[in-house]
């Protein structure tokens, strides 16, 4: 007799019952639950010896000291170096995640050439040959077309090499990137400053050397002149919300009060050759007129003037927001003039002249092409443009650069990742990314002493990586590598026997005169260190000129940058945040602009409730910002901290696609003096 259906059921019943008395079911549910700890969705952190290594941050001019916690050789976190002479143990948000940059999805690992709107790999020699050919062509044809290097990080030894090369290249011109402060010859003695009058400079938000500034914050008064209620404005002792583009008017208004009330430094004024002319100009801006232009009450301006000079050494600084591009010369001069009135130039707590790290032979100023702003280059003049590393660049309005290009042109971008300006290039050269190459960092623009830091390489660059100097050498067919020139420079510093070395490893300082050999100095700097020159004794400048030939430009700027426009009644004010407005951004930055509302994000504009209401746009709706030069779609954030009639637009990364500020910045349009920080605009619901 065979097994019936019922029999089978019985058998299975017995089996089921038996199974429960074995480990099987229990091991299975336990094992499966534990599997959820290490299933494929969960990554494995690296294992190995944890080491501490040091380098210097080259992502922006601040040149902060960096302590890298590494597993074997891979940095897993970066931090500041305590007691560092300028960074004082501070790294900014961007610096903290710098070790991600070599690993970005947009990383460039081989030379690329543009084909239509795509890039294709090519051998590096093809790129070098193309450029060399163009140079040859200019030389032979004797045309006036220019060969230019656009340097995002001037003042480096590499910059010197570029300038020397341009000195020999046909019609070479060396251009400072719009966002870069020129290698200034004056630093600010911030620790002793009494009052800082900031015209739009993000003083507490990544300006100059953040560590040094924030450390001194308790000791100086801060008056922030800015349309937008920036982070700095929120924390300043006084906030003067002026109408967009009226900085110069306010500066002259304040000068007017200082002169009228005899609050200025007579001695300093006497040293100025054109003081009378300047005073005459200021006389045209009595508080009343300044008030009409800036939208501030007249008495506020008077009070601000008194406040400015009322608390020890006063400095006025003109700021370029990392997203908004440079400030016009007119404003710069009008603001700088206040420092002459305050007599803060060459005084303790004011602007102190500073030298530069000794240069190796062959780099005397005479042998180098001079520094120029982009505006200085004639339009449609540049045949060959080499852009060095948009890594640290603030946002660039590409049209400001494009208009300078000749009809037939070659743009070569040296960059670690395909971001920012590099995306406009014809050729992309895979430069070593941050932490991948020994570099030098010059003194930060605001530090009142010459400095020289080395950024030791913590990582190996990809095999095909080519740095700028290497690229020039390939065209010239030979030449000293950057590392060699750096060694020469270190030798020059050692030979000068000035200043001292700060060691990141233990915070100790040794006088250069006590360092045995140039090799030892190199070693000390490479394993984490910086050279600081001895502070030059403060001394008043000799004869200075305030306006120079720029009187008319100042007057123009002071009369207001934004003429009324019936069609475009609103003012468009772009702004950015340091380390994220230009090139590549670590994906961890999403914490700030996507996963929280710390940053409104590069796809938004902020409006005052009244403005929003007038245009029938509600919070979070999408609007189209229209200017004479272009338009862009953005999501609206209603915020009653915004000035009525103003559109604030963040330049930076956003959840919808990484940093792509073109549409906005091109809409802002480029003014005659090469600025794009303001525009007339109108708004409509999308």
């Amino acid at each position: 007799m065979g097994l019936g259906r019922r029999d089978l059921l019985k058998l299975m019943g017995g089996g089921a019952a038996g199974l429960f008395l074995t480990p099987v079911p229990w091991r299975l549910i336990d094992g499966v639950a534990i599997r959820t700890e290490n299933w494929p969705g969960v990554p494995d952190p690296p294992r190995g010896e944890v080491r501490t290594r040091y380098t210097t941050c080259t992502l922006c001019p601040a040149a902060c000291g960096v302590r890298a916690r590494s597993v074997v050789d891979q940095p897993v976190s970066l931090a500041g170096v305590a007691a560092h002479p300028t960074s004082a143990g501070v790294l900014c948000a961007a610096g903290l995640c710098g070790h991600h940059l070599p690993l970005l999805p947009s990383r460039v690992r081989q030379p690329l050439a543009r084909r239509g709107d795509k890039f294709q790999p090519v051998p590096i020699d093809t790129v070098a040959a193309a450029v060399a050919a163009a140079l040859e062509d200019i030389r032979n044809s004797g045309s006036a077309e220019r060969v230019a290097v656009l340097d995002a990080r001037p003042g480096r030894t590499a910059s010197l090499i570029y300038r020397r090369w341009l000195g020999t290249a046909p019609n070479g011109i060396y251009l400072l990137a719009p966002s870069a402060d020129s290698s200034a010859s004056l630093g600010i003695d911030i620790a002793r400053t009494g009052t800082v009058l900031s015209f739009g400079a993000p003083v507490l938000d990544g300006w100059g050397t953040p560590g040094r500034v924030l450390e001194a914050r308790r000791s100086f008064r801060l008056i922030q002149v800015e349309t937008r209620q920036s982070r700095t404005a929120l924390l300043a002792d006084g906030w003067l919300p002026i109408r967009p583009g009226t900085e110069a008017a306010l500066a002259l208004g304040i000068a007017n009060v200082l002169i009228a009330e005899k609050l200025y430094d007579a001695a300093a004024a006497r040293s100025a050759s054109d003081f009378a002319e300047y005073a005459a100009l200021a006389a045209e801006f009595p508080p009343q007129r300044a008030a009409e232009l800036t939208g501030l009450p007249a008495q506020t301006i008077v009070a601000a003037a008194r406040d400015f000079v009322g608390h020890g050494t006063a400095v006025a600084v003109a700021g370029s927001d990392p997203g908004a591009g440079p400030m016009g010369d007119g404003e710069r001069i009008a603001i700088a003039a206040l420092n002459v009135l305050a007599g803060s130039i060459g005084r303790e707590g004011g602007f102190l002249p500073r030298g530069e790290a000794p240069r190796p032979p062959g780099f005397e100023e005479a042998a180098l092409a001079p520094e120029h702003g982009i505006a200085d280059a004639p339009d449609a003049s540049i045949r060959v443009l080499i852009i060095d590393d948009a890594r640290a660049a603030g946002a660039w309005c590409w049209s400001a650069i494009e208009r300078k290009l000749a009809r037939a042109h070659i743009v070569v971008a040296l960059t670690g990742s395909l971001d920012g300006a590099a995306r406009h290039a014809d050729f992309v050269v895979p430069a070593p990314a941050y932490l991948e190459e020994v570099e030098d960092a010059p003194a930060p623009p605001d530090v009142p002493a010459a400095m020289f830091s080395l950024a030791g390489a913590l990582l190996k660059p990809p095999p095909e990586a080519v740095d700028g100097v290497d690229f020039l050498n390939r065209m010239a067919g030979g030449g000293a590598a950057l590392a060699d020139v750096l060694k020469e420079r270190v030798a020059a510093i050692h030979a000068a026997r000035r200043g001292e070395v700060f060691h990141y490893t233990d915070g100790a300082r040794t006088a250069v005169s006590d360092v045995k050999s140039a090799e030892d100095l190199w070693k000390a700097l490479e394993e984490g260190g910086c050279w600081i020159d001895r502070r030059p004794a403060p001394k008043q400048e000799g004869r200075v000129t305030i306006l120079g030939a720029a009187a008319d430009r100042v007057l123009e700027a002071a009369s207001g940058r934004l003429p009324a426009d019936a069609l475009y009644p609103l003012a468009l004010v772009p702004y950015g945040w340091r380390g994220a407005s230009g090139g590549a951004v670590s994906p961890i930055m999403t914490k700030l602009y996507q996963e929280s509302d710390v940053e409104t994000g590069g796809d938004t504009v902020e409006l005052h409730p009244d403005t929003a209401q007038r245009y029938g746009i509600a919070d979070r709706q999408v609007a189209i910002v229209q200017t004479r030069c272009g338009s862009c779609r953005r999501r609206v954030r209603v915020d009653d901290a915004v000035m009525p009639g103003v559109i604030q637009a963040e330049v930076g990364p956003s959840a919808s696609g990484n940093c792509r500020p073109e549409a906005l910045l091109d809409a802002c349009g480029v003014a005659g003096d090469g600025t794009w920080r303001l525009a007339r605009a109108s708004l409509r619901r999308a």
Partner: protein
Amino acid sequence: MDRSYIARGLDRCATRRFLMWLLPWALLLAFGVYSAGLCLVKGLNQTNMDNRFAFGLWIFLDLTVIALGAGAFFTGFLVYILRMHELKAVINSAVVIGLVCYSGAVTVLMVDVGQPLRAWFTFWHPNVHSMLTEVTFCITCYLTVLAIEYLPLLLKNRRLRQVPSFLVFEFELHRVMYVLAGVGTFLSFFHQGSLGGLYGVLRGRPFAFREALGVWPSTFFLFVLSAAAVGPSFVLLTTWLVEKIAGHQLVERPVMQKLGRLSGVLLIVYVLLKAIDTLVWMNRTTPAEGFSPQQFYGFEPFGVWILFAEIVVFGLLPAVILLDARRRRSQAWLLTAAGFACAGVALNRFVMTIQTLALPTLPFDRFLSYWPSWQEVGTFLAVVAYGVLVYSLSYRYLILFPQERDLKAR
């Protein structure tokens, strides 16, 4: 051809017609299972819940469904413990409804948690202080009880009766039915309560937080009471619905009215206590936590009206109607009132879950809004479809309404 499975003396529609009725529900179920599958495979990012709306549609409806399913334990309690034998007419139906509601709710909960494979940790490493532990334990146990209570219905099936051992077993079960009912009542009492406690204990959510009576916050008892109150109403509604669909009467009218009256009595008590609780909360609990009750009702659309609707329109009103014998006799009044009562409890559960989470607690918080994703809706529709299917099958092949045969004979 499935005649041999249908109890004698019951007229059921033709198989083909029955299958046509099942088809749409089966499709709905399939769609729901797909949505749930997405949530399980791709993760809860398929829902519109977020870190602030940690609970959403699912928890709200689970609470509602379980409250409505309370008819099972409460009718059982009335029949077996309080010996209201006339209610035997609906007890079977009530058991099936209970089974459907509870099993459905538990299934959705399994999708709702982020790591279903770890769900059993609650039994292995229980935190006795957590209301959720109480809920989990009681619901699982009670689900077992319901399954056992469902068994005799199943075994009474014309075909299964042919197995002699089943018959014996079924008879044995009947003798312990009283015990089961008792246990069931006890368990349900606790988890209905702890479901209320779930929110009542949230000190960090001043809108939901209630002070403790003994070890439980007042919401514990309010939930038990409200559930018991709407249980009968829901049984009443379903019975009526089945009658409409089946096209003939299933229980005698007095039974329906009895159910209505029971609901009314409990509802009026509930409304009374709820009102007192609200007053205490307004004048004592909230101020003590540094808030004023007005703040919570300052955010549109959740104004004070919601409180009024919950207590008066969907509480007091149906209670009064159900307590009025003359109105009860009118089918329309009876059903409307029952419907209102159920809606009232649903609204209460909504306020406790959704509104609580929507309200800010910190000065820089915003009032939040949330709308379920289609995956969330789909998953829940699966439960509805599953319920209809199970009930339809049970109705066709089992004897859910003992009176049906006699009523037909008349």
